[in-house]
């Protein structure tokens, strides 16, 4: 019992969220989602393209809010319960022939894949938090500094803005 409580406890403590970065250039009307790759004094390179720093009008950080602890607990318990249910059921039916084994693997793969999609649907159904940085009137040096801070880990207080 203490082990179960410990496992559940540790599971619940982890607080996390995913985030994406979007930029608005002087030439575009809409923000575009980017995955930054490299930053130089003049350019921000991202996957498949690059932009001049002076042409960036705004940067927006979007994070998905963390899901509530109770939901997280239910999801984690359900996820691992399903795994052990399948595992124990499988061992009751064992031994298997090789074709039967491929069926067993398929069940685990389908169940795991489905769990991943459902998890994604649940976390994505929670509201997003957006933090915008207006670059339109900012000198290039400052834009560079802020971009650098955004791209390096956890060094500036505005990362913690809700």
């Amino acid at each position, binding site marked *: 019992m203490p082990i179960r409580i410990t496992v559940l406890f540790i599971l619940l403590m982890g607080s996390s969220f995913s985030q994406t970065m979007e930029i608005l250039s002087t030439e575009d009307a809409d923000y575009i989602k980017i995955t930054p790759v490299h930053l130089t004094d003049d350019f921000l390179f991202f996957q498949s393209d690059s932009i001049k720093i002076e042409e960036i009008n705004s940067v927006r950080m979007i994070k998905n809010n963390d899901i509530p602890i109770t939901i997280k607990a239910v999801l984690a318990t359900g996820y691992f319960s399903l795994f052990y249910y399948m595992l124990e059921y499988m061992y009751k039916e064992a031994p298997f022939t090789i074709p039967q084994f491929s069926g067993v693997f398929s069940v685990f793969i389908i169940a795991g894949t489905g769990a991943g999609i459902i998890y994604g649907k649940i976390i994505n159904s929670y509201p997003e938090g957006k933090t915008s940085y207006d670059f339109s009137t900012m000198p290039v040096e400052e834009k560079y500094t*802020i971009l650098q801070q955004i791209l390096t880990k956890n060094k500036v207080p505005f990362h913690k803005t809700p």
Partner: protein
Amino acid sequence: MIKKLIIYAVIGLLTGNTFAQQDYMYTRPGWFTFLKNIPGDMRDYTRDPLTKKNLWGLTAITVSTGLMIYYDDKLLDASNELSDQLGWSEQTNWRMEHIGDGYLQLYVASSLIGYGLYYNDNRALQSASQIFESVFAAGTIVQLLKHITGRESPFVATTPTGRWRFFPNQTDYHHRVPEFDAFPSGHISSITAMVVVLSENYPEYTFIKPLGYLAIGLNAIGMMNTGVHWMSDHPIGIALGYSFAKIAVKKGRTQIKTSIKTPPSFSIYPLFVSKDGFGIHMSLTL
């Protein structure tokens, strides 16, 4: 009092909210990238441990394995006693043993694939690929070592710490596997590989490391209590899982580089937050 302090320390450690900006770029892996990478992983693995920086690690594994082999029967008794004291049933030990038998790895990796494909998330897809890659690569070396060392599992042991039959007859091996396949542990290498891949790729999920290490520990004890492994089978298994996971992770992502501009700067500018929020940001970079 000390117990309470430890609990508070652990809570503090775990609740530390890491806002890890993604420092790595993840490209979408192919369906068989993990298989293609394995030969290269083997090459890297055989090259890296013999370098000077890994000398301490190598020495620690060798010494700890040697000591554990000497005390294996006593360690096995201690593990069984622990199980009795905590009132673990056979089923509990069985569940702990199966943390590392590959099905959990398949299940978790499939979840990452499902999530990654549905939401176009390359990090999830890469993590799944890296789990397969490291589990298979480590598993290959584990199998090779098992087939060379031929050590008896505890539940069929004919000597207190299990007999070793180096370079056993391979036909005998496949007819009576438990008499030859104890060293090293493949279960522990696969759970270690999965934990390392996930903790490396998802550093913002602060629970992965403590939960993962707990899972590795439970797996080790579970396997001793079900009689499939000795304590000394674990260090090399852990080392293999860890090393191959690190290699797979290194290959599966690219670090985002920023040119470092050093002059100190001070900036102040308005900050707009969603839902009508407004603030001022001040930043001092040294």
